[in-house]
Every structure is written in structure tokens, then in C-alpha cells.
């Protein structure tokens, strides 16, 4: 099972800078980042090459962080790859709460991060369909 880092941020200048600064100092490589905005505040979601260490470093610096279970599936970096997964989940009547991804190797491999109500159930479904689940995040 993979985990993503969620960080509460007030919608003010310098808030993202603070996070990326901590990661740089810890020599942690940022893989992907999304921001969900809700007016005066938002939630930043991160995937790094070492989420556990990143989580601890951010928490130490008093940021409001939490780890959330997510499905991280390896998919080919080509047209329609996400669509196939979306279809599988639709057939299984599973709602995708959030999704984003990053390229692992240009033209070959990408990582797809899915936030779903039941992470292990989705992992099992995807495994059965032949997808590789990356769980070292």
C-alpha cells in the first residue's frame, strides 16, 4: 500500500516555498504535487522518493501533515492508459476521490496515484488485471 503526504496550508504567499525548502534541505526528491484549494486554505498533496522521511521532516518543522493511504499503480506512459484503469474501476463501481500521477520513465512508465475509499480492494482488482502496484512510498 502506498501513502501520500497531505499538508494543510493557508492561502498565503510563501507557504509552498516553506515545504519545498524543507524537502531540498533533506535531499528528498519531489515526484508529484497537487493543490486542492478552498478559498483561504488548501491541502497540498505530495509524492516523494521517500515519503516516510519527508513526513517526519515536515512534521518536525511544525507543519500540519498527515499520511493517507493511496493506490500507486504503474501504468504505461501512453495514450489511454488511465482510461483503461478508470473503466476497470467504473465496472467495479468504485468512486475515484482524487487522482494524479507522474512520469517514471518518459515514453515507458508512469505512476498513477489514486485516492479511493478502499485502498486494498482497488489494489487487488488492479493486480488481478495485471497491474503492478508500487508500495514503497
Amino acid at each position, binding site marked *: 500500500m502506498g501513502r*501520500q*503526504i*497531505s*499538508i*494543510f*496550508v*493557508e492561502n498565503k504567499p510563501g507557504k509552498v516555498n516553506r515545504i519545498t525548502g524543507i524537502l531540498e534541505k533533506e535531499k528528498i526528491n519531489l515526484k508529484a504535487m497537487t493543490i*486542492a484549494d*478552498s478559498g*483561504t*486554505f*488548501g*491541502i497540498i*498533496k505530495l509524492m516523494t522518493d521517500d515519503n516516510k522521511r519527508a513526513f517526519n521532516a515536515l512534521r518536525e518543522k*511544525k*507543519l*500540519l*501533515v*498527515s*499520511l*493517507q493511504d493511496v493506490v500507486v499503480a504503474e501504468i504505461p506512459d501512453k495514450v489511454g492508459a488511465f482510461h483503461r484503469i478508470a473503466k476497470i474501476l467504473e465496472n467495479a463501481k468504485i468512486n475515484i476521490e482524487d487522482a494524479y500521477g507522474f512520469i517514471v520513465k518518459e515514453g515507458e512508465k508512469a505512476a498513477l496515484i489514486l485516492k479511493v475509499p478502499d485502498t486494498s480492494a482497488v489494489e487487488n482488482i488492479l493486480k488481478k488485471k495485471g497491474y503492478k502496484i508500487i508500495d514503497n512510498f
Partner: protein
Amino acid sequence: MFRDEYLETLPQKELRSFQLEKLNRTLETANKSPYYKKLFRQCGLKPHADNLHEIRKFPFTTKDDLRKSYPAGMVTTPFADIVRMHASSGTTGKSTLVFHTMQDIENWANLVARGLYAAGVRKTDIFQNMMSYGLFTGGLGLHYGAEKIGALVLPVGSGNTHKQIELLIDLKATVLHITPSYLLYLGHVIEEAKIPLSSFSFKIAILGAEPHSEATRRKLEKMFHIKAFNCYGLSEMNGPGVAFECIYRKGLHLWEDSYYGEIINPGTGEVLPEGEEGELVLTTLQREGMPVIRYRTKDITRFIKEKCGCGRTHRRIVRIKGRTDDMFVIKGVNVFPSQIEAVLMETPEVDKNYRIILDRKEGLDVLTVEIEIKREYFRGDINQLRALQGRMTSMLKDAILVTPVVELVEPGTLPPSTGKAQRVLDKRRV
């Protein structure tokens, strides 16, 4: 010039003996209420004063005393003789109630009428009352006073700005009763809608329910080409009309035939010499249904010694300078930070630290409450936070009667709750 020349110009010496006579009647009446009866007995006090100075032997009455005697511990007469109740917002829990007999309502209306008359309001005027009606005293208080003068009263109440403007234009109101912040907002709306000022006929604005500065008055007067008059009151003392500005507008005449005023050191309770600044303490002198003895208003002011050019002998107080407590007024509503604190205490997901920011955006008062999320509560879910924000907004609105903007902030970013933290940041220039 005067609505009641005899009373309004009563020479000081006669006014004082008038006060003493009324004070003694008030003490006797108060002694019929369960609260004062018990208090006088406990303190070994006879409900009598040989001279006005002797009022000092009677203990102060505080808002807390009013709350403890909820609902009707200070009422002197069966409800059969009571015709009206008003309430003021409380800090926490129960609001404080004030009960009036028919005669009390009549006296109150007369005081308001005197004040309006002193400001130049006459029976030919059209009086648009833009204060809310109901438990709040602002609406009904001025309504009765303006009717007493014989003006045509438009009881519009507060809010509904477009209807207000329509009526102002169509009925040609000449006098407004309004909070300074709402008048500022009205100016903004009129400007936005590009309505020429020549469409309006109002020449006088009675400003109440909110402390405001001389600068705000000047701004409003310039904005509308009107004269604005300051009106002071509090529900415990009836409501608006306790003190009123005359056309000289150099302080507010306290109607001393109906109120006995003292200025005290809020720390020691000691009565200060005339002219020194301190907390205003008021005693009702004419109220039957619910007399209140030496009520601590928590408003800071001082008496003006000099005689007023208008000829009224009732002493003036200066514009209220502030409060001895942390109460603030927003959209004409009194709010105590402790009311907000109480809501936070009931919500496990947030910390006890908070900050209140008062601001004015496009002429409208905005109350923002910054709240820290508790660390252990955070799950990284934005919907959870949105729901929390919505829940806090409605809980706070229920508590303080004003809809706040709730902003969630990171834990540890607000000043800590210990000590005298600066909880209220007022950015308005009122």
C-alpha cells in the same frame, strides 16, 4: 427649541432635588423586587437616601447580576402590569431581560422624543427607522419617540437595502435612524448604483447602537450633505435615548431627570470628581417595572462641566471613548470574545486559540474569526475541513447573531490563550 422646556431647563439645584425625590421613590420600588429586597436586607440598607451622595452606600449592579436574576428577579410588579420586554445579547448563556410597564414605555418615548426634538426633528418630518425591531431596543425605542413627536414613521427595520433606498426616494424621508456602519454601506450601494444624491431628501441622521468617532461623523456628513447626531443608550437603561446630542453637538445631554449618572474608577469603584474620565454608572430614576440601581455600563466617558449653549441644564457626557471590557460592536450587535471562546470550547476539532479581525469591506462590516485546527484531528481531507468550517460558521452565528467568516489556520500560529493575548484586531476606522 425644547420639547419639555420646564424639565429640560430646570436649574441645576432644582434638578438635583428632583433627582433625590425620584431616587427615593426608585429605591422604594426596587425594594419590591426579589433581587433588591434580598440585597438591601443582606447589606443592612434601608431603601432611602438622605442626599444624592448617599447613593454611594448602595452596591453596584452588574450585567452579571442581571443575568443571575434571570428571567425576572429585578421586576417589581406582577406581569399583569408589564407591557413590554426587551433583551440584550449576553456574553454566554442567558441574555439579560428588561421589563417595562405602560408608564415606563411612555417615559422612554418622551425621553427619545426630547432627544429627537433637540436634534431638530419635528412633526412634519418623515422618519425612516432603519434599526431592527424586536428584542433589540433600537427599533421600537426610536419608533415610539418619533411617533410621540408626530413625525411619520416608516418602520423598515434593518437590512433589505434596496427596499430602503426605494422608500427613501419614494417617501422622501427627511430623518434616518441608522447605525454608522449601515449608513456607510448605504452610501456605498448608492454610489455603486449611480443614484444621484439629489434623489434623496434626508437632512438628519440619528446614529446609534455603535460607538463611532468624530471622524466617522464628518465622513458621513460630507458623503450625504447631512447633519448626524449621536444617540446613546443601553437596554438595561431602556435603550436609545439615555443621552442625546442637541444642535450644538458638543457632547450628549444625559437626561438627568430620568437617570442619575456617576463616573467611577473601573478598577476601584471609587466615584471620581466631576470632569474626570472613567466608567459611567447609571441609576434609573423613573422606571417602575424594573428599576436598576448603579448599573455599571462599562462605557468610558466623562461629564462636561460647562453649560451648553442650548440652555439645557442636564449635564453632557462626551462621546463614548471605549469599554472597560473587551466587548465590541459589529453591525450594531454587541459581541464579547468570550461568546466565541465558548463555541470553540465545545468543538474538539479546534484549538482554544483564536483571533477576531474586524474589518470593513465595501462599506460593510466583516467579522473574521481565525481558528487553529487541532493537530491530531487533521486527516488530509479537504472536505472534512470544509465541513468543519461550515459547522463553525453556523455555531458562531447562533452564538453571536452575526455571520462570521471562519478561517482555519495552522496550529501554533495564533497568540497563545494564556495571559492578556490580543484577541481582537479592529481594522475599521469608525
